[in-house]
């Protein structure tokens, strides 16, 4: 009844068996899921190799170059991590929202507003220019998180109160965020007519490994900044919320079956607002860490779409906060090294192929495929 039988009619006489697909009636083991993801990446790389070959390149050499350019030395690995930090945070932002089936497509906008909020501390200025570094960083952190959360609150409130589709509202708010930022870098905080603010003074910079090169020479030239600590703490916090807390239980229950949640007396509206705010806060934190750790000024091109890549990362990590960290590093590597082979094109295509393969592999988690001998009817 419930099983789907796929038959290749054309090959009826060629193969004495048929492929049967049926839903799994048991839970697959944990390692099976991991193995499947790994194999999916391998398949994707093979497809990518074919693509590179088709484009006239040498797949082996390209892959070797990608690996070398992203993991080949401490220096480049550090650069990979710099790329991975904002991805981790936006990936976590999407993870928590998607867990509740709240489709926050607005991590990009929340990232920009978080960056703007953090810049305000320096540029408005909120603090005197010579305030101690730790006060600067904590204040910028608080501002980034606060404005990100505020920007998440808007679509959350609209959905909870008026049932406005959050996909549309968060998507549109992205444009507002970018233009809001543009207004400030063009008009308010523009440095000498350039479309960027002035460089932040050093006490508003997140510490980098390179800053400690004097004490530890091995850190010389390493750009990895303190944002990594924020991201890792955030991953742990999101893990604790999702799997260990009562709030996380509510989120998972609403995500799986809102009717059941309502029946259990859980307020869905309240959680929509709170989860959107948490999601926005994480994306805002990503913006703050990027502005204070890497860019050191407010400008237009602070994000090559970190917020959108966060969506993909959350999906690929199967909404698991620790997997988000790992996937982000891989994507950071692809972004960094991909640019070395071709500014755009093949590397982006490989990203896409990986995603398709991983999502397709989900099918095997849900269904069993086996070969059955064809019985003559």
């Amino acid at each position: 009844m419930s099983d789907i039988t796929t038959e290749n009619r054309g090959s009826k006489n060629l193969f004495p068996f048929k492929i049967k697909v049926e839903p799994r009636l048991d839970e697959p083991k944990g390692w099976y899921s991991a193995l499947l993801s790994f194999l999916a990446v391998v398949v994707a790389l093979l497809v990518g190799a074919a693509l590179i070959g088709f484009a006239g390149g040498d797949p082996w050499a390209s892959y070797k170059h990608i690996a070398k350019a992203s993991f080949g030395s401490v220096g480049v690995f550090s650069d990979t991590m710099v790329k991975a930090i904002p991805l981790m945070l936006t990936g976590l932002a999407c993870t928590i929202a998607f867990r509740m089936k709240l489709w926050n497509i607005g991590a990009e906008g929340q990232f920009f507003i978080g960056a703007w909020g953090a810049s305000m501390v320096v540029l408005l200025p909120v603090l005197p220019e010579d305030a101690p570094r730790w006060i600067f960083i904590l204040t910028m952190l608080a501002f980034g998180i606060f404005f990100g959360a505020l920007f998440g609150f808007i679509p959350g409130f609209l959905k909870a109160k008026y049932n406005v589709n959050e996909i549309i509202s968060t998507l549109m708010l992205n444009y507002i965020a970018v233009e809001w930022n543009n207004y400030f870098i063009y008009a308010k905080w523009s440095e000498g007519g350039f479309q960027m603010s002035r460089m932040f003074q050093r006490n508003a910079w997140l510490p980098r490994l390179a800053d400690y090169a004097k004490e530890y020479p091995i850190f010389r030239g390493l750009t990895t900044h303190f944002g990594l600590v924020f991201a890792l703490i955030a991953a742990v916090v999101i893990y604790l919320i999702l799997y260990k807390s009562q709030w996380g239980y509510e989120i998972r229950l609403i995500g799986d079956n809102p009717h059941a949640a309502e029946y259990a007396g859980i307020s869905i509206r309240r959680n929509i607002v709170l989860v959107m705010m948490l999601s926005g806060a994480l994306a805002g934190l990503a913006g703050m860490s990027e502005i204070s750790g890497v860019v050191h000024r407010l400008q237009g091109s602070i994000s090559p779409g970190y917020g959108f890549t966060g969506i993909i990362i959350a999906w690929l990590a199967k909404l698991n906060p620790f997997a988000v960290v790992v996937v982000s590093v891989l994507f950071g590597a692809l972004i960094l090294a991909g640019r070395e082979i071709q500014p755009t094109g093949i590397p982006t295509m490989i990203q896409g192929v990986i995603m398709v393969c991983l999502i397709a592999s989900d099918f095997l988690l849900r269904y069993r495929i086996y070969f059955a001998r064809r019985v003559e009817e």
Partner: protein
Amino acid sequence: MDQINRNEDLERVVRMQGIVKQFPGVLANDHVNFDLIHGEVHALLGENGAGKSTLMNILSGLYKQDAGTIEVHGKREVFSSPRDAIGAGIGMVHQHFMLVPSQSVTENILLGLDEPRFRLNLATYEAKIAEMAERYGLHVDPRAKVWQLSVGEQQRVEILKMLYRGADILIMDEPTAVLAPSEIEELFRTLQSMTEKGKSIIFISHKLQEVMEISNRVTVLRKGKVTSQGIPVEGSSRAELARLMVGRDVVFRIEKKSREAGEVVLSVKDLKATNNKGIRALNGVTLNVRSGEIVGLAGVAGNGQRELADVITGLRKADEGQVVVQEEDITNQSVKVGINHGISHIPEDRTHVGTAPNLSVTDNVIMKNYYQNPVGKGWRIDSTAATDYARELKKAYEIMVPTVKTSVRLLSGGNLQKVILAREISSLPKLMVAVQPTRGLDVGAIESVQHLLLAQREAGAAILLISEELEELISLSDRIYVIYEGKIMGEVKDGNIDKIGLMMTGTQLKEIEEGEISQ
């Protein structure tokens, strides 16, 4: 003689014989015979699940029968799709309309037809449809968009759709269920005018009054079997039809200890509420349930049972009236307030409301106490305590599942219901609202669910049992209320199935008793 027989055959526009349809676990139609005479309204009467819709879905080509024959206009037909059926002149108007809201009436009617082929000359078709609507008294503007129409008008569009396709046999599946009283009158006038113009109509319903009013003959189905085939409505009494519909099966008695009922736990006063479509579903319901008794609520589905359960448990707002639990007014309070007042709820829909399919057994059993000791501690959930709790319940309620980590979507219906019961009973409820607790379960599971309910009665809980299974209601309940169109028709204490049947089809208990006296 021969001549007469042939005339009779010509008159019979539909003749279904020995129709059998088996679904997994249910014999939906068991050698059903049915015939329809030219120009009549023939009612198909029966409870939910009696097999009315299955039979008509077979006639309209949606299902294929396992055995039996269909003759239309004296010709043997085998339908493999609704298109075939409409080709033979049979059109079905479903209970749920199948219209595109953003398109106009005309566009909806033309949808799926071969014409117009290339140029959409709407004006011509609009005129055609307007003329047809005029002829049958189906007043609707062919240019109006469907979303602008009332439910009654949308139904007319559905009828027009069938007429436009050349249907001369119309199947109406519970057409009055969605209509307001004034719209029902208009529908009946339309049906009348259609039969006068030579159409034949099959009218599916479980409302006796309407059946008596509109139809010429009636066929009654009960549990997939015909209990009376094509008897004329004139000359049959409501009581007789009600009995044919609900049957007179020997009620199996369950061992039930006699027990004095205690104080009133739930008291519902003059409750009014609307359903999801904004139509009044509860029209002043008053009832009470005392501790240590099972009170049944009988009624054909869709007469306000679900809404009543929702309002009591806090899932739906009441427009008027009161819900009092243990002398505290909890009308229109949140679900959590209800839970904290000791209300437990076995919902009608196990998979869509009662459980979260992709979460584990553990996560599903802690749904209502995740914030309380010992599972909830401070801000967190003690996963060891939760697992222990789930394991305990798994053992006590004999939930057949490898581990408590298994997702509940992998559980059978009976085991899923045990998960819900385990959760709802272990909270030691003062009041239990059980909606269709045994529906769709196998015999063994039904028995264990019933025993669990009786054990709760022993323990002193007040139980409101809402069910469409009359036998179950009668054998489990101490008293039974009957609900019809959002009103309580009366209360029986002796399980008199005739009275229940009459009340379920819309007769007040008072009227029944008056009738008995006058007889």
